[in-house]
């Protein structure tokens, strides 16, 4: 649900129904660690259509009986070995880390940032209201929330516009070195290219694949 929501808000969610399962991002080497591990790994996406396939609803995630999708596991996914009447609910730092650093969310954040810049209007308050309405089921932020939101948005934009050039483009472009070791870089690159082009006009984007 959380992943689907992030994808939906950022505009990355692929809405096709049915068809074969897909293998979303997971940390490199995870399957190789277990006995009989290596399986045909992830296929990257090279076009907008393929992005939408990779970013289908979590329902379509490829499932291995002995090693569960890690992004679901930290959010207490049942093992599927027996029926589950009531799902466990934990509240751990592992979830915070997943939301901070799982590529799925990093990428969704980039894409959402792009939406805010492109569709959110021209002032900080407009963008905050737009972002809030997207993520909070259509509500507008109340006045007491506005200052905090505005500051957060401001900090984010400052990072995008005037932050250290190299760091900024590394982050926005999503040229993750780890990914290059056999992981798909292209979804990242596509999203990164959009964001760079919109957020920092004139930035170097030719390095994107």
């Amino acid at each position, binding site marked *: 649900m959380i992943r689907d929501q992030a994808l939906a808000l950022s505009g990355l969610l692929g809405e096709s129904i049915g068809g074969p399962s897909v293998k979303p991002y997971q*940390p490199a*080497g*995870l399957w190789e*660690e*277990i006995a009989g591990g290596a399986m045909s790994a992830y296929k990257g996406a090279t076009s907008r259509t393929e992005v939408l396939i990779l970013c289908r609803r979590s329902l379509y995630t490829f499932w291995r009986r002995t090693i569960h999708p*890690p992004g679901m596991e*930290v959010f207490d996914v049942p093992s599927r070995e027996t029926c589950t009447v009531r799902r466990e609910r*934990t*509240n*751990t*730092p*592992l*979830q*915070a*880390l*997943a939301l*901070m*650093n*799982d*590529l799925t969310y*990093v990428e969704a954040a980039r894409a959402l940032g792009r939406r805010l810049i492109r569709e959110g209007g021209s002032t900080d308050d407009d963008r905050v209201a737009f972002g809030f309405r997207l993520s909070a089921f259509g509500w507008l932020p109340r006045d*007491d*929330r506005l200052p*905090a*939101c505005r*500051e*957060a948005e401001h*900090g*984010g934009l400052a*990072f995008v516009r005037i*932050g250290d050039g*190299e*760091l*900024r*483009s*590394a*982050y*926005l472009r*999503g*040229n*993750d*070195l780890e990914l290059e070791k056999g992981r798909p870089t292209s979804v990242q690159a596509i999203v990164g290219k959009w964001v760079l082009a919109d957020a920092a006009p004139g930035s170097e984007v030719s390095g994107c694949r």
Partner: protein
Amino acid sequence: MPTRHQGVRFRGVGDPVLYLSNSPGMSQDTRRHILDDIARLNELKQSEFGDPEITTRIAQYELAFRMQTSVPELTDTSREPEHIFCLYGEDARQRGTYASHCLMARKLVERGVRFVQLFHRGWDQHKDLPGDLRVQCQSTDQATAALILDLEQRGLLDETLIVWGGEFGRTTYC
């Protein structure tokens, strides 16, 4: 107990904790700012609803931030002196072994972690008990003793309660 006391399970193979590293380009400074902003929003929410889970969430973001530096340091055994490996056994050099987990347990206790649980599996023998049990005992015996001795020599044992238990066992005649 409030959920902020919930345990964190370390993985036995590969990275003990997933998603620990920031994406390239994300500095700890920027991360700090982002977490401060998130905390402010969460505090507003908390003041409105009074849900203890929100308080936990705020605390867990902070813990996650600290884990980003403390966990790599915790699992790095390269700075342990030679006599530590004599004590725990050579297995302790290798990630995922019971001996390495015992060493990690000592480091956790040393750093003030209040509850540490170690598991050792594979005691469901059906045949070849003399052989299998010897292997099982070999991989647990020395390291367990080492952990207790190590805690003692660091002055930690007097305030540590050790519970040793099993939920499986076989008699010598199967």
